[in-house]
């Protein structure tokens, strides 16, 4: 069914802390590793060792620079994956019903055996969360590691999305954003978690925690005293020579 559920029992999603993310891309790589070898078609690469490598990724880390006037520039790393929107346009545009949102936990998935690879869902997503696999010809997207989080064959601490389990900085959090008392919901409330592109009306579930404001300090350049030009007048013979030559 490609109509969206009226409501979902849970709203599973990610909370990504932009203050903590160090931009190491480990989430991106662990995502590729887990998802290329588990649920669905592998995430293929084309020309992987050639001049123009192109590959399918479900998570990508962008880096932005924010600059306020008279203040040092601030770098923010920005991991981006499917936001598992409540009003997901990628679900309703699908002509086959391959794209769907689960009623039990709100995860947006693709049934690959029904996908005709028309690419319309990728067009409809404002976030660029879906990528067509060049070899499999079907649409790939973040599954919120649906094959990990309910998997009783792996240790309990591993039953979170691969990106969350991997993040060395602890910048990624996983939980039920529909439950106001969950850890992730409290984190969002405390830190003012943001929706991406709210004007698109997609009602994303994932939230981003903004970078904390930097302390207002004067720009201190520790090397400045050592780099100042030494223009003092030379004394003695050289000073006389300098002054004499100046007069000529």
């Amino acid at each position, binding site marked *: 069914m490609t109509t969206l559920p009226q409501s979902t029992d849970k709203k599973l999603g990610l909370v990504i802390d*932009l203050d903590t993310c160090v931009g190491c891309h480990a989430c991106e790589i662990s995502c590729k590793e887990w998802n290329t070898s588990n649920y669905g078609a592998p995430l293929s690469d084309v020309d992987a060792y050639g001049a123009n490598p192109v590959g399918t990724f479900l998570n990508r880390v962008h880096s932005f620079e924010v600059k306020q006037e008279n203040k040092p520039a601030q770098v923010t790393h920005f991991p981006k994956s499917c936001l598992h929107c409540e009003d997901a346009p990628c679900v309703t545009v699908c002509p086959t019903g391959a794209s769907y949102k689960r009623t039990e936990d709100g995860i947006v998935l693709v049934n690959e055996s029904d996908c005709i690879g*028309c690419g319309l869902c990728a067009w*409809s997503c404002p976030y660029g969360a879906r990528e*067509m696999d060049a070899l499999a010809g079907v649409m790939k997207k973040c599954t919120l590691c649906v094959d990990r989080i309910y998997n009783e064959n792996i240790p309990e601490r591993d039953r979170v999305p691969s990106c969350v389990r991997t993040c060395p900085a602890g910048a990624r959090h996983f939980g039920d954003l529909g439950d106001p008392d969950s850890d992730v919901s409290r984190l969002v409330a405390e830190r003012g978690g943001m929706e991406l592109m709210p004007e698109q009306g997609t009602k994303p579930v994932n939230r981003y925690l903004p970078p904390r404001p930097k302390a207002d300090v004067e720009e201190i350049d520790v090397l400045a005293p050592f780099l100042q030009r030494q223009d003092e007048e030379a004394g003695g013979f050289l000073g006389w020579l300098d002054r004499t030559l100046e007069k000529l």
Partner: protein
Amino acid sequence: MHPAPSVIIFTTLSGLGFGLMMFLGLGFLDVSGWVAFVFVAIAYALAGGGLLSSLFHLGHPERFMKALRQWRSSWLSREGVLSFLTMGLFGIYALLWIFMDTRVAWLGYLAAASAVATVFATSMIYAQMKSVPRWHSFLTPVMFLMYALAGGALLSTQTYIAGLLFLLLVPVQAMIWVVGDRAFGASGSTMGTATGLGKLGKLRLLEKPHSGNNYLLQEMVYKIGRKHATKLRLFALAFGSLLPAALLVVFPASHVMMLLVILIHLTGLFAQRWLFFAEAEHVVGLYYGQR
């Protein structure tokens, strides 16, 4: 957006084919027998050829029948269902026309209405995309329908109606471009809203996520040839509607004349449709510092 040839051919040819079906269904063109057969064949070749071309855009064309299932929610699915319905209705109408020499008016009207609905559904595939502000407008269906009607009038040799529609298309197309140029700015989506970092200061992309290319950039951040946009717009306007209108008004209709006008219109139409895709900017470009 990437102007894939398969999709350009699909939207242009199927638009013309369904436009022709509409005029034939409404009872225009007073012919019968073999001549009727030729016109019916042209309509089917265009509509069917266009639909066939759209299959090349799919990753799994062999599964296309599955696309007919979700007509309740998906415009693409509705388009598929409606195009089959139109071709079925028009097929019965055409068989009676060619072999029994009777044109069943109500059946023709039904086929014509279905043809219009098909073109409308095609246009809504694009118009529904909030993520592509230039397309997300009622002007997109207006544009698709007007080109289909004008082309259908031309192909069914209704020179007067075709000339009038082409004349009307000139200001409408110009307005669509003017409005479209402002659409992205008016959508409110910026790099600031895309990242939520807009409030913190002046924002710029420091590093792309990867050094190479990816599907998103190839498909949705297409920029090649935009520098020629103004020239192409003038070309599309001249060949797509202005010149056909002028030729239809000035010269008396003849087979050679009509063929020439059709070819001129088709060239302009291809340019117009290429621009429709190439000029459309997807908001995902904001994550890459590009629009």
